[in-house]
């Protein structure tokens, strides 16, 4: 079971973190129509995902973008998949599984542009709770070729090309911003990282010295013990 009392992790330095500050005043329930539109479209476009999710009846997932103030609550009830947005400051119900990571990586995962295991190995993605349920969700989502541009698709046919182009543009702007943020972060952290490396090296040297001293101490103790036994034997 997900540990609700675990301290929150430091959010990653991403464009989503800044975008999140801007949209923070918006109450979670305002996203309801958008989420409903996205979910309905996904059910229509990718029924194979939802047929694979059916076995997760009564499982509650918390999908937590680490750079946003909101989380997604995904559940399957009576064969239907439900998603709602929750404000992180409100009390969450019990969840069987929690998936957390930067929002753009979660989107890439949804679109199958990145491998879930690779994100896990690199510690970008974190999972807690029911691992089997998480794997089932991951495999279900990966079984379709999801495109968020198609999912968001404009309601009127003649608007669609322009709408798709705009969504793609927003996507690529965020991708570029993400790369820029990494550069900025590396540049800010470089002096601190250098200092930490020096401290680490010093600690390693001290640890080695301690280990040598420990070994010496064992030798001295053994030799003392032998001498004491010899003295006792002589008596």
């Amino acid at each position: 079971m997900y540990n609700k009392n675990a301290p929150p992790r430091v959010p990653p330095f991403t464009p989503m973190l800044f975008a999140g500050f801007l949209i923070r005043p918006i109450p979670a329930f305002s996203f309801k129509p958008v989420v409903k539109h996205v979910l309905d479209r996904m059910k229509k476009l990718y029924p194979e995902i939802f047929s694979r999710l059916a076995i997760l009846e009564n499982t509650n997932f918390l999908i937590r973008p680490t750079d946003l103030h909101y989380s997604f609550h995904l559940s399957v009830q009576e064969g239907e998949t439900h998603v709602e947005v929750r404000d992180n400051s409100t009390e969450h119900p019990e969840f069987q599984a929690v998936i957390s990571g930067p929002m753009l990586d979660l989107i890439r995962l949804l679109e199958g542009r990145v491998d879930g295991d690779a994100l896990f190995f690199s510690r970008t993605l974190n999972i807690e709770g029911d691992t089997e349920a998480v794997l089932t969700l991951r495999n279900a989502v990966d079984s379709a070729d999801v495109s968020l541009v198609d999912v968001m698709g404009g309601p009127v046919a003649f608007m669609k090309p322009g709408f798709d182009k705009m969504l793609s543009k927003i996507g690529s702007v965020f991708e570029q911003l993400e790369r820029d943020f990494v550069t900025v972060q590396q540049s800010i952290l470089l002096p601190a990282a250098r200092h930490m490396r020096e401290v680490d090296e010093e600690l390693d040297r001290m640890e080695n010295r301690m280990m040598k001293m420990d070994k010496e101490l064992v030798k001295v103790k053994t030799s003392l013990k032998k001498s004491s036994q010899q003295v006792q034997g002589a008596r």
Partner: protein
Amino acid sequence: MELVCPAGTPASLRAALDAGADVVYVGFRDETNARNFPGLNFSPEELRESLQKAHDMGRQVYVAINTYPQAGNLDPWYKAVDNAARIGVDAVILADIGLLDYAKRQHPELRRHLSVQASASNPESINFYRSAFDVQRVVLPRVLTVREIGELIKEIDVETEVFAFGGMCVMAEGRCSLSSYATGKSPNMNGVCSPASHVEYEQRRGKLVSRLGEFTINSFPNDEAAGYPTLCKGRFVGHTGDPSYLFEEPTSLNVMMMLPELIQAGVRALKIEGRQRGKAYVYQVVSGYRKAIDAAMKGEPVPFIDMGNITEGTRSTAGAYEKNWR
């Protein structure tokens, strides 16, 4: 040189074909294959559609039915072989001698490959499978050097397929039951090593702690790359007192730079491991290997293609193919 690629879902199969796979291997959605993971694998209907797509592109599909049938419960394995034959797949990959015998008798026209799970690694063993069950190809265990593979090929009359990329195991292939001591389930009997239903992750004091069944098997500080939650890659306390990798460190196999030697040795096919991985992994590895094989077959130098981001523990090794620990 044939490039044989994994797919756990129809979308992964499409990704493999788009990336240049010659063959895609898959499994049915049950315990008859060694990647029996939740939400993964193909229904007979999905396999039929996927096979049609592959054949339309001039490619092939193999089906792995490579776990060992359970005493008193043979039907799922017989049914899997019958379904594969009925759908018209290009080959079945089998490990159990009873199942090989069944396939040969019931579907003599169905091409049979010997799975790595059969652990056949010497001429006597391979020639026996050839004469008794008429296997057309053997998938070699990951225990031989390239030189040993070359010598073996000279003594057998069967095509050879070797693993090129993906998960590494320390086990004698097909004989590992380590996972069953902690979970009651093993790869060869149930198709799962460290079944997800027995795996739990927890954030504890700034570390990611992984548990298998009742055992804590690893603990990763937040800046360290993680690996799969298998016992063979767990960190344990030995005589030194500090937890360390007593069996194997988290790492992936990658023999891309040895392609010219494998071609020279007479290997017929290269296998990519990872039916449990996502389609992004499949696309990246398959396109990388497609480029590398095409270059090597033309006698050009193998290009360096970075796969670091998708390897376990973000590290790779040529493992037994080099045996550089000797």
